């Protein structure tokens, strides 16, 4: 088993914005690891313990990578501890007790739970699924025993990894990136903590933060997404298991990209992450989130909440590559339900940028939003959402302009293949106080095959005449002439489609940190497999 195409060369550029060739981006490494800003670029290389160059060795196998991981003691023998299915106040209290939380947090959870009980599950998204029995879900799972070898991993998933050119290892330790890996619900490993601590940066699991930095949590938890916000956010507030917490102190520029890989490992366990990122005045941080999940036969509910707080002149970049199990290609059975609330608040002259590549999950329901509260603040949303098989996505963003001279950009690319249904739903709201607000939105959809659907539902609400709001949307298919052109030059139809789709998404991919961009491109190719022709 080889990691990538044989003889693949990997080179590092000091700039994370390397020009990418659209297909089979070739990367070469020269010297990873020394420069923290550039060392993050690599897929799979993991220079935690020195400057070994792994990637140039094309014979390195997945097993070796996996073994290396275990050498570092990544395996924990913690037995899976799962609550019996069901949800009531006792369960909420038990979760809180399990995590040794202070009383105010227990009360906050209970308040959220009581409010959740009064709420109705939203029916407006353009997605269809069997009703979820919230009493049939178990609301707490400590990490279970990790697999002993790769043989225990579903072969189909291994094939996918292989196609992506990603060693399994890559999920857990990206080169030079501090990884706070969340397996099921409890963080089990955090790296690079010391280096970050030097700068005063706090990057830890949410539970640790509750113990070590209660004042920060108390101040910011629920400040962006209140516990009453929506059905799934309320549920999350009541039962959230774990997640990440990031605090960047005043004037600090985070020296590396922070990354958390969420994984759903235990069957029948909803995961309810809670992520809180606070960038103090003049601080800057780029955060990556990526997800994989092994094949399971039951729908797994995932209702996360992400809150971003960008104080004055701060800059937060949040990137997501989501490739959870999308369910069976024919029946749609077994995929992940991804109902996520993500929102950020901008202070004066600050900037929040969301970039997402959504290729997985049976159902995606997600609207990363920016509240442009401070004057001259900037919000950005770049999204690629791909639905193939029986996948359904209802995703988009909300840009709420409150401050003067605020601006926002929305670039959304939706790709539907197979029997996928893809909806863009977004709100651009310019309030009365937001003088000179600017928004530009572009939503492009691409259809591959005749049984899929692409839908656009932008909502534009303007209450200030000085605002300039523009929205454009187009829907198209891949032209036969384009495919013919590629065929004629010796590219297979499948490669041609992947290439054209990647070109279609280029505007979004260029916003991604380098290694995510590479992964995202391959992911699209793999996800589109079998949808063409």
């Amino acid at each position, binding site marked *: 088993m080889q990691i990538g195409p044989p003889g693949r060369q990997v080179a590092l550029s000091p700039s994370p914005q390397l020009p990418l060739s659209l297909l089979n981006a070739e990367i070469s490494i020269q010297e990873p690891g020394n420069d923290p800003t550039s060392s993050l670029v690599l897929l799979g290389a993991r220079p935690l313990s020195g400057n070994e160059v792994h990637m140039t060795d094309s014979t390195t196998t997945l097993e070796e990578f996996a073994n290396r991981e275990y050498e570092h003691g990544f395996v924990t023998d913690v037995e899976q501890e799962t609550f019996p299915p069901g949800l009531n106040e006792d369960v909420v209290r038990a979760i809180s007790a399990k995590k040794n939380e202070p009383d105010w947090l227990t009360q906050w959870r209970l308040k959220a739970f009581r409010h959740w009980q009064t709420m109705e599950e939203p029916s407006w998204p353009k997605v269809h699924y069997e009703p979820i029995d919230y009493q049939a879900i178990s609301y707490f799972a400590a990490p279970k025993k990790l697999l002993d070898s790769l043989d225990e991993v579903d072969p189909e998933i291994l094939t996918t990894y292989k196609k992506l050119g990603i060693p399994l290892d890559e999920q857990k330790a990206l080169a030079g990136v501090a990884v706070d890996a969340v397996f099921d619900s409890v963080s089990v490993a955090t790296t690079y903590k010391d280096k970050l601590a030097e700068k005063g940066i706090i990057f830890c699991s949410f539970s640790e933060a509750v113990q070590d930095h209660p004042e920060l949590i108390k101040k910011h938890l629920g400040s962006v997404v209140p516990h009453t916000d929506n059905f799934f956010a309320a549920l999350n507030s009541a039962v959230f298991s774990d997640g990440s917490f990031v605090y960047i102190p005043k004037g600090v520029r985070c020296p590396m990209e922070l990354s958390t890989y969420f994984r759903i490992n235990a069957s029948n366990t909803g995961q309810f992450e809670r992520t809180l990122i606070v960038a103090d005045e003049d601080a800057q941080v780029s955060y990556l989130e990526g997800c994989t999940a092994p094949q399971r036969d039951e729908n797994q509910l995932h209702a996360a909440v992400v809150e971003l707080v960008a104080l004055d002149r701060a800059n937060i970049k949040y990137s997501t590559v989501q490739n959870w199990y999308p369910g069976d290609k024919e029946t749609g059975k077994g995929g992940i339900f991804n109902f996520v609330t993500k929102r950020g608040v901008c202070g004066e002259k600050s900037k929040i940028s969301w970039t997402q590549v959504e290729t997985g999950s049976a159902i995606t329901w997600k609207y990363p939003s920016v509240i442009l509260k401070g004057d001259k603040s900037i919000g950005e949303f770049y999204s690629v959402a791909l639905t193939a098989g029986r996948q359904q996505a209802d995703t988009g963003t909300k840009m709420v302009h409150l401050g003067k001279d605020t601006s926002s950009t929305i670039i959304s690319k939706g790709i539907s293949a197979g029997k996928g249904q893809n909806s863009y739903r977004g709100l651009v709201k310019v309030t009365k106080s937001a003088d000179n607000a600017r928004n530009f939105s572009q939503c492009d959809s691409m259809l591959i095959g*005749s049984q899929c659907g692409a839908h656009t539902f932008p909502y*534009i609400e303007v209450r200030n005449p000085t605002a300039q709001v523009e929205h454009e949307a187009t829907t198209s298919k891949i032209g036969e002439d384009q495919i013919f052109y590629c065929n004629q030059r010796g590219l297979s139809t499948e490669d041609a489609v992947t290439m054209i789709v990647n070109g279609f998404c280029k505007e979004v991919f260029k916003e991604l940190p380098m290694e995510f961009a590479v992964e995202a491109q391959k992911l699209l190719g793999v996800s589109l497999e079998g949808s063409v022709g």
Partner: protein
Amino acid sequence: MRSTHLFQPDLAGSIHASPILASLGSEARERFNELGFPSRRDEDWRLTALTPVTGHPFSRAPEATTATEHWTLPDAVTITFVNDRLVGGAAENDLPAGITITALSSAAQSQTQLIEEHLGRLASFDDQPFVALNTAQSLEGALIHLAPGAILDRPINIIYATTGDDVVTYPRTLIVAEENAKATVVETFVGDGRSLICPVTEIAVGPSATLQHTRLIELSAEGSCIGSVSATVERNAAYRLSSAGLGGSLARTDIRVGLNGKGADATLDGLTLVGGKGQGITHVVVEHRVPNCTSTQRYRSVLDDRSKAVFTGCIIVAEDAQKTDARQSSRSLLRSSDAVAHNNPQLEIYADDVRCTHGSTVGQLDEEALFYLRARGIDRLTAEGLLTLAFAAEVLEGIPVEAVKSRLEDQLMAQLGPEITR
């Protein structure tokens, strides 16, 4: 829920003499009783404040007279209704063969087959409460029938005037253009005082037929109009709608067009002018049901004072409607800092070989263009008026009847810039 409303439509018993209308009416009455008035919890009505309608004890308009000369058109075949009563009919003898323009009440006796086939079939009252209300309550309206190949060069002018305070009218229009027929119809809804107009227009455009439809709504500051237009367009036929709404405290129009045959085309234009605390609301659904159809939507709104304009336009492309070409653009011009514009363009696409676009902008007049005019000695108010007129011109120019176009332009100029003269 309905008990809190001051507007309680009198839904007791059948009001129709003709059995066809009576049975349709009772079906619709039942449906309205189930639906009730929409609330803001309904996604379709979330942005519509219905208080101007539900907050007044409207009752059926009594017989009255009012001057309608202002809306007559030179050389047109005119049919006039005041408070749901026919006051001036078409001079039937000048019409070419195959063209019928008559009141619905008399057509219910003489043209039963036509009525049965189309009335209440095009405008669905299943999910539209105000269509149900109209279908249950409507007593009068116009029927226009064009036999296969019938062509009328002169415009047909239907005037529905509503006069009085706290009165409601339910005008109903049915237009059936058979194969290869061609006509131009102008529908004008005029309301004075605190009145409510609740019109429904049903249109069937047959194969290769062409129908140009202009729909004008002119209301007093306290008047309201909640209407709907439902059209089906068959193979190679063309339906062209230009609507203009001026004033009113609430003017809402729901337009539903179904493209049923290959090569069908729908062109929908609309201009909304709102001021005061008025609401101008347009909901459009264009459904491409078969391959090779085209549709274009162009909607413009001009907002003054504390007004609100909502445009919700949905393009639905059915699963096998390949080679669809659908375009939509919506633009709002905010002339006041207290006005609110909502633009909700929507695409629902289930076919892959299609081209669908929508564009939407909201903004104010271009400062540079204003400066250009002012540098040439034009005062600010007039300059603003001129630029606003230019903004509206795109829709105005699409109006096929010259007299209507120039009347609207005059009206706009009077409203926008006192100094502008032709």
